[in-house]
């Protein structure tokens, strides 16, 4: 629409603020938040690859940052966001087939997404430390 002014005049239906946070709702929001975090996190991935393609010293700089305690915290968060978004996506695939819409199923899927993402993140980091 060309005319965007009247929007501010119209009252919004009450939405987020009137509901008690439910697990399914929180996981839905987290899916979008992790997606956004991954979106901006791709800068780090690109910087890392471009540095490797540029010079040894550039790579050591980026690799050194990733290995620092601050870099590791970012990478830990990135790992969790990635795995949570991945499992959240699988939840959407299940819903796409028309299954998993019952109250108990939805609750189970929401909890499984969170538990799975935390569990897998720990697993990935244990493997990373063992391999190193």
């Amino acid at each position, binding site marked *: *629409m*060309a005319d*965007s002014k009247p*929007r501010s005049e119209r009252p919004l239906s009450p939405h987020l603020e009137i509901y008690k946070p439910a697990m399914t709702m929180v996981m839905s929001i987290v899916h*979008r938040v992790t*997606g*956004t975090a*991954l*979106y901006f996190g*791709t*800068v780090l*991935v*690109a910087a890392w*690859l*471009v540095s*490797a*393609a540029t*010079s*040894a010293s550039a*790579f*050591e700089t980026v*690799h050194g940052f990733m*290995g620092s305690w601050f870099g590791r915290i970012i990478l830990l968060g990135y*790992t969790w966001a*990635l795995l949570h978004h*991945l499992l959240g*996506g*699988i939840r*959407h*695939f299940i819903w*796409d087939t028309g299954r998993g819409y019952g109250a108990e199923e939805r609750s189970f899927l929401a909890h499984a997404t969170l538990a799975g993402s935390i569990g897998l993140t720990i697993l*990935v980091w244990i*493997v*990373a430390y063992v*391999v*190193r």
Partner: protein
Amino acid sequence: MESSSSMKTPLKRVRGLGSAKSGTDHFLKQRFTAMANVPLVLIMIGVVIALVGKDAAAAKAVLSHPLVAIPMVLFFVSEMIHMRIGMQVIIEDYVHEEGPKILLLALNTFFSIAIGLSSIFAILKLSFGA
């Protein structure tokens, strides 16, 4: 909406694809790239783990191996599309002013392509370059 006197057949009306003019194309691209991303992301995690503690020469040896470089290039193609579509939905949900919305949608496209192609370029240079 079509009026009752429309000359269009129901099939034609379905193919009109609604106000967005793109039908389910957006939804399907999101899902297909998501499908591709599942195995590709797992490979990416494996590659990063393999590079922990490696120096530049060793990292280059890993990243330039075809069995690593090919899935990585595939990942960035899929990811570039997926992240652009995802952020587009977020922008359309929250930004209603026409000017800022168009600007952000443009920046979203530029950002996604720039990130994706930079990463792919880097992988190709590691594979073919000196």
